């Protein structure tokens, strides 16, 4: 029996038991041994196991607990919030009042639409440009790919800084334009490098034979490389999309017109600064909906798209990220 067999069969091949499928009737010496545990590994002490479980539970609670409280409070009515003295931990009633109020037109609805559109347009633009560039630089020995790569890489070590960038963006007339939230941060060199490394390691023989057969580069990219790179494309798209969705700083410095603000700016105004954004003061003043539930509902709105998309992309993280980033 080889070493690997030993590891895989675990319990069945524990020292002292005989080989072969028919287990002898000898009493197992380690009654609750986990069959997945390698034979050579000692059984963990109960105290160690307990501590491990507690740590994991604590870590997960620290992340999910606050989100739970925020979601539950956003769904609570006035009475529940008053009885709880503020934030609600145990749900009593479920009402979508706050969401109905926020999404029936007005400031938050508009901000959410702005955020969604900026995220969509930005992600499509960033991905198109990044995938093209990554593939354009991925062929060994192609013309001028080294100098171009250098132009990209230098930006990872040095940037002009906030003031020069601000003066440029306002100088080319992007002030108060939605494009100010998209163009200055449209390219991440890191993402291009991850894509490029992935493209280079993806079936080079296939690509070479397509070239020999006379397929053009565009055709190779669309028909061979992209279908083979779905994982990394999904992951990098998520990175770009999250970047656009999370953006507030560019909106703050470039958009004077509060009507153009994205959701994150509204959230900052409402919860961090505790001021009602333009157009929302009336709703909060009339107290139709408890202010706390409204604040929490805006937080949930900022959270929802991430939580919806995340599970679909999460399974690709290791494959998509690590083939590109860690190999180097």
């Amino acid at each position: 029996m080889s070493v690997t067999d030993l590891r895989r069969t675990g319990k069945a091949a524990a020292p002292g038991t005989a080989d072969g499928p028919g287990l002898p009737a000898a009493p197992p010496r380690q009654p609750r041994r986990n069959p997945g545990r390698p034979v050579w590994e000692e059984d963990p002490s109960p105290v160690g196991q307990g501590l491990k479980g507690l740590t994991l539970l604590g870590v997960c609670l620290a992340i999910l607990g606050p989100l739970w409280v925020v979601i539950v409070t956003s769904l609570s009515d006035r009475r529940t919030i008053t009885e709880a003295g503020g934030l609600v931990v145990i749900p009593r009633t479920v009402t979508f009042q706050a969401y109905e109020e926020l999404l029936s037109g007005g400031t938050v609805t508009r901000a959410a639409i702005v955020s969604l559109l900026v995220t969509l347009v930005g992600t499509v633009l960033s991905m198109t440009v990044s995938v093209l560039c990554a593939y354009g630089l991925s062929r060994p020995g192609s013309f001028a790919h080294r100098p171009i790569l250098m132009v990209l890489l230098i930006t990872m070590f040095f940037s002009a800084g906030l003031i020069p960038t601000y003066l440029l963006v306002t100088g080319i007339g992007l002030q108060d334009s939605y494009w100010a939230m998209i163009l200055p941060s449209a390219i991440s060199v890191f993402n291009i490098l991850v894509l490029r490394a992935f493209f280079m390691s993806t079936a080079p023989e296939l690509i070479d034979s397509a070239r020999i057969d006379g397929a053009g580069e565009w055709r190779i990219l669309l028909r061979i490389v992209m279908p083979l790179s779905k994982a990394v494309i999904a992951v990098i798209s998520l990175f770009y999309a999250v970047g656009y969705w999370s953006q507030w700083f560019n909106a703050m410095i470039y958009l004077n017109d509060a009507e153009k603000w994205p959701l994150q700016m509204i959230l900052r105004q409402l919860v961090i600064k505790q001021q009602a954004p333009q157009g929302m003061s009336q709703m909060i003043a009339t107290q139709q909906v408890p202010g706390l539930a409204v604040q929490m509902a805006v937080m949930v709105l900022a959270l929802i798209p991430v939580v919806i998309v995340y599970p679909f992309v999460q399974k690709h993280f290791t494959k998509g990220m690590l083939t590109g980033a860690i190999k180097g």
Partner: protein
Amino acid sequence: MRPGTASAPERAPAAPPAPAPGGRWHRLRRDRSLLLMALPAVGLLVLFVYVPLIWITVAFKDYDPYVSGLWSSPWTGLENITLLLEDSRFWDAGANTLAITFLQLVLFFPVPIALALLLNSLLSERLRGVVQSVLYLPHFFSWVLVITVFQQMLGGAGLLSQLLRARGYEGFDLMTDPGAFKFLVTAQMVWKDAGWGVIVFLAALSSVNQDLYEAAAADGAGRWRRMWHITLPALRPVIALLLVLRVGDSLTVGFEQILLQRDAVGPGASEVFDTYVWWVGLASGDYGVAAAGGLVKGLFSLVLVLLANKVAHLLGEQGVYRK
């Protein structure tokens, strides 16, 4: 300077460079579609990263966009730099920046390693998958959301204060406490990104040859000795790389994160280099001094990256780029 990320695959003998019969012209014509593909990204980078370098000259000028343009504003030599170095707020910002970097190195850096070791010791794939999904999630939240979550938990009207008051104790407000601010910022970093940091270490751990453990166990090495002699050496290159990156990036600490909380805590405890540049330049309109601040910070950062790499090379690690 050849970053490792880019250079490794090139060395692979996957496809030898095609011979270029017609020389440079031939290669240019052959690769024109590849060049065309790279063009939009390069264009955007040049426009938004290289062209702004022109405005660095603002650091040496008396520049006021409402009075005169960049070209017509008068040169003032090193006056802005002098003003910057005489500004005590600049030095305070430096002290805060380095203090936060230090706290992050001590309190943030080890957390992903510990979590990765813990996850790696789990036998159940399913449990590991579930915990991983939870751990990675906060990385994808915006800083605005993370800070509002912290505010709802630890702020004056937050959950903890609320629970304490309900039991007759005093409430507290961590979010506006200048003394606790640097720890608070570090805690927010840990909450948001420590889980995501695990992914790199888990990958390194999964590439360790399992036979080493078996052989060590057969030779009588216990759990802890195996960790010390097999697991940690396997993680060493990754740890070294991340340390180099962090030290090289010492002067940059969570700009958005801190800017969002600057009003609540006050600039005394929260001003860092980047927020100083923002405050002096965009909020107060003194573009010259702010650009000088950005330039000084940028130059020192560059030197730090190069130094950190040098040290890594001297210690026999790979660093960010190879020699």
